[in-house]
Structure formats: C-alpha cells, structure tokens
C-alpha cells in the first residue's frame, strides 16, 4: 500500500549522485568546561550553585526552599525527605508539585544543557510537572559540546531522554521573554565538585 508506494517513489526519484557523510571531528571550544558551563547558566535563565559534596547539596537546597513544600527527591545521596513516587496511583497527583530534585548524567559546556533520562526517572513527567526543578550534576560529567555528548552516549540504553537547558520559557507574546511556560518556572543547577 502506501509504504510500498512511497518507498518505490523514492527509489525511482532519489538523486543519483554520490553524497558522502561528512567527517564529524570538530574542534572543541577553548577554556575549562566547568567555567564555560557556569557562564551559560544565566544565559539560559538558570540559577547556579556549587557544592563541595552531596551533604552540601542538601544544605543548599534547604537554603533555597526552607518552607514545608511538596518535594520529590530522586537522589539517594541527598538527604531530603519527599513523596514516595512508587506509591503514586496516578501521575496526575504530581500536578503543582513544588520541587523535584533529579540527577543529571551529563552536562554540556557550550549551551548549559543537562541530560536526564528515564534511567534516572521513575516517571518521565517529573522534570516537567514541578514548579521548581533542581538538577544536580557531578563536575566530572561536564563535556565540551554537543558532538562530544552524543559520542559519549553512543551505546546508552534509554527509552526516553532529554537535554534540559534552563526553566521552560516562551517569547510568543511580542518577543518578550517570559520564564515559566508549560514546564518548571524556576531551575537551579547544583554542581558537585567532589562526588564521593
């Protein structure tokens, strides 16, 4: 049917010239990746903090969110109590969740993007449905650019994964940037210098 017809059309019509795939080696940008990454944070409207280790991470989080709020914390090493998501009957109960604390696997210096995948997520909706999002990354997991990050992930086994660069935003009304569109309205990135 249509599958066959489309494929036959393509086979008949496709250009006959030989077009080779390009070489993908691209020079990385100069500078230390952690410094470059930090520079990107305000540019993607994310707040940024450094923690010397994971116990310091918890302190930073308490400082930013002192009140009694609904939290989902997906990082065991961060001692902050929260909702047990495995007990949720319906993910819609997470609507208006105040804070999600999630581990990022890799971070990209050139654009501030952080990779989060369902290897770390019991529910894909978690980084999106919270009003505030905290992504925690280890300093050693910052890479230079997008080429490098995709190369490193080559054999990565995930079902869903996303690069997140800042809180959700829009400029659809007269080009004015508004932070907080359909996803989180605030994002804090915590860089852990010593992950032990």
């Amino acid at each position, binding site marked *: 049917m*249509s599958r066959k017809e489309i494929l036959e*059309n393509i086979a008949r019509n496709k250009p006959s010239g030989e077009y080779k795939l390009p070489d*993908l080696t691209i020079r990385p940008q100069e500078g230390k990746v952690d410094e470059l990454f930090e520079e990107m944070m305000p540019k993607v409207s994310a707040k940024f903090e450094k923690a010397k280790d994971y116990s310091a991470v918890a302190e930073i989080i308490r400082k930013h969110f002192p009140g009694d709020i609904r939290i989902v914390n997906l990082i065991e090493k961060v001692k902050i109590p929260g909702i047990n998501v495995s007990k949720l009957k319906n993910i*819609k109960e997470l609507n208006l969740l105040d804070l999600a604390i999630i581990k990022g696997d890799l971070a990209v210096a050139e*654009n501030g993007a952080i990779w989060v995948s369902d290897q770390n997520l019991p529910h894909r909706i978690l980084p999106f449905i919270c009003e505030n999002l905290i992504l925690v990354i280890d300093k050693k997991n910052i890479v230079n650019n997008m080429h490098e990050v995709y190369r490193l992930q080559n054999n990565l086994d995930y*079902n869903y994964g996303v690069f997140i660069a800042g809180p959700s935003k829009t400029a*659809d009304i007269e080009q004015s940037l508004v932070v907080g*569109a359909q996803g989180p309205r605030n994002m804090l990135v915590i860089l852990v210098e010593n992950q032990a």
Partner: protein
Amino acid sequence: MRGSIKDNSEVFLKNEERTNWHDKALWFVREKRDLAAKSIPEWEQLREKASAVKMHTLSNLDQYLIEFEENALKNGVKVHWAKDGEEHNRIIEEILQSHQVKKVVKSKSMLTEECHLNPHLESKGIEVIDTDLGERIIQLKKEPPSHIVMPAIHLKKEEVSELFHEKWNTEKGNNDPVYLTYQARLSLRKDFLTADAAITGVNFAVAETGEVVVCTNEGNADVGTHIAPLQIHSMGIEKLIPQREHLGIFTRMLARSATGQPVTVYTSHFRKPKKEGEMHIVLVDNKRSERLSKEKYWTSLKCIRCGACMNTCPIYRRSGGHSYEATIPGPIGSILAPNLDTEKYSDLPFASTLCGSCSDVCPVKINIHEQLFFWRQDIGRSNVLPKSKKISMKIMAGVLGNPAVYKMFGKMMRISLKLLPSSIFENKLNTWAKNRKMMEAPKESFQEWYQKRKK
C-alpha cells in the same frame, strides 16, 4: 480563492506603524541569530556538514526509512505510512477513535498544519488543543500561523490580552506578557491533565536507533506526551538523519538559527513508549518523494524549519506571514509551495528581491534565492499564470530570469548587505518593499542596462 501576496501585503502595509513594528521585531531576532552564529568559530563548517548529512540521507532515503522503521518497531513503536495529508489525517483519526479519544493536546507541528489535521479531527468530534503558546493564541483567534517558529508574531500584546479576556475572562486591559503567559499556563495545564492523547511534530528522526527528537522551549511536547497514555508523532519523511551522532550538528544550529538561543530549552529523545503507554509514528510523504526527482528543487528538502530565512527577508518582514497564504511563508515557503501546486502559488517566487540573505543565513545551506529564480523561469515559461498576471510576470521573469541580470542584481544586493550598516540597508530595502512603484524601478533600470549590453 487564494489572494496574491502583492494584494495581501498592500493591505498589511496600509498600517504603517504595525508594519514597522513587525519589521523591527523580526530584525531583532535576526540580530540575535547573528550573535549566536558568531559565537561558534566553526559555524561555516557546521553548515557544510549539516548540508552534507541531509544530502546524503535524502539520496538514500528509502534505505534509511527502512532502517528507521525496523528499529522503531523493535522499540515497540507502531509505524504508519501516509502518502498524503488525507491519509495522514485518516490514520490519526483511526488511532484516536480506537482509543475513544475525546481530547488531544498537540505541540507545534508544521506538518499537521500542512495536512489540515485540526479541522479534520474537529469534524469528527475530537477536540484539539494547540499547546504551544503562540499556536494556542492563534487557535483561539481562529487564524493560521504567520511564522513557523513564532506563530503569533503578527499580534500585539494588547490583542492577546483582549483575546484572553474574551475567552478566559482574564483581567481586562492587563497587557503584561508575564501575566498573560501565566494565564495561558493555567488554562493549558487543565487541558494537559484531561487529554486522552498527545500529538507532536518531529524535528529529527534517527535511523540507527528509531528514535524521534522534538525540540521545544515551553516543554509542551513533554508535558503532553508524558501525561496522556497515547502519544503520536507526525513527521515528514525528510526529517531523517542516519545516526545519533549527527544530532550534534543539528542541535547546535537549530536554536541558534531560530531565536539566537544556544539550544532549545528541551531537546527530547523519544525511543520507546512509556510504561503502559502507546507510541505511534506517522511517516508522511505528501509529494516529498516526488520532489526528490526535481534536480533544481530537491535540496529544499534539507530544511530544518528554523525560520531564519523569514526573519532576515525584507519582503517577509514588511508583508507579514499571512500575506503569503501558504502553510509555510517567507523565502522557504515561496520555494516549497510551488512544488505542491505550481499554479496556485505561482506569484510567490516573485515576492523576493533575490538579495540572497536567506541563503546566507540558512543553516543547511539551501540555495533559496537561486531556487526562487529557477521557479521564476519555470513559471514564466509555463502556462500556469492567469492571462492578466502573465504579461507582467513574463516581463519580470524575462528580466529577473536572465542569468546575467540576475547575477548582477544578486551581487549588488549581496554587496550592500555586507557593506552597509543595517539601518541604511534596511531603510533601502524597506522603501523598496513599501513602495510598490519601486518594485518596477529596478526592473526598468535592469532592462535598460540589459538592452544596452545587448547592443
């Protein structure tokens, strides 16, 4: 009947204040794009590579589609093939009906716009909510998008405020974009929580892994697909790339070209359905396979829909996207539309100065201005123009369709683009675009010039 861009833009130009505002808003985005491109020393290299990846994929598209399908099926995804818009709509309708879907949330997709999916589903009693803010605004206003990245760029905040007040009873006269965006967030969140299915477009599809990649700033594609049990991704067959590694090139260029951001806030990779969820991919041809055979035009399939060629185009900026009356406006729209229906869109390739700025900013190096020129020749030679138009178009095609003249014209525009400060050059082109008499002026002088040369 479709109105011509000439008549439509005359109406648009009548409101001078709005025209100037529209022009400036887009120029601002163009400048942000320039800064972003300049921040990457290897930008030109990336453009070369992006173009090469696309040409390679397109010239082996059947194999890559088969590979993609195989891997997507292995991932537990259902794959459908649609030869045209009608079949695409029917497939989606059937999937939705079989799940008794009453309400769908949709994130931005020019393809579903091209196929007119919304009216089709609505006629079958399925409610469709567009969830990108700009798209939601124009959906409420019952208008088509005027730009492929910023669909509501033609509207002022006062108009959005008025619209929201009327539809959602928001505070009258509150024109603050922060307030308005928040009100839309509240309304859309309710829709996300009550939708039975989510539909998204696709920016890139990877043959090697069978995954689809969707880029948004608002997070709407993710909120939609992760809550609703059923997710459908509609994609044109030209979205394919061979390997995951090639995503590096395109994700570095897309947002920088589109809005000047270093990357979109979300670059989401969907490989397998979520737990207890169902995932479908609809592959759509709609004359794309036919275009592959057109030697002069097949490379327009490289387009990654960044919108940069619109933001830079003096005609687009001063005509507005709606003047084109085509799904995709601007320079790229003017070379895409005639592929779908040459007669209907025969005026669009003439709505250009051939200045070449579109080709200069295009991240995948489509020779847009040259293709505009080729279309002029083809249209001038063919019998697709109505008689009244034909005479004047023929003259234009004769003049602007002459390689020597065209080269000269292109060269001059290119030089002025590079040399003049933007204010002067903008002014020049603006006057050009604003004053229809000026449209004839270069024609005359080039004719004279050409006549002299022939003697």
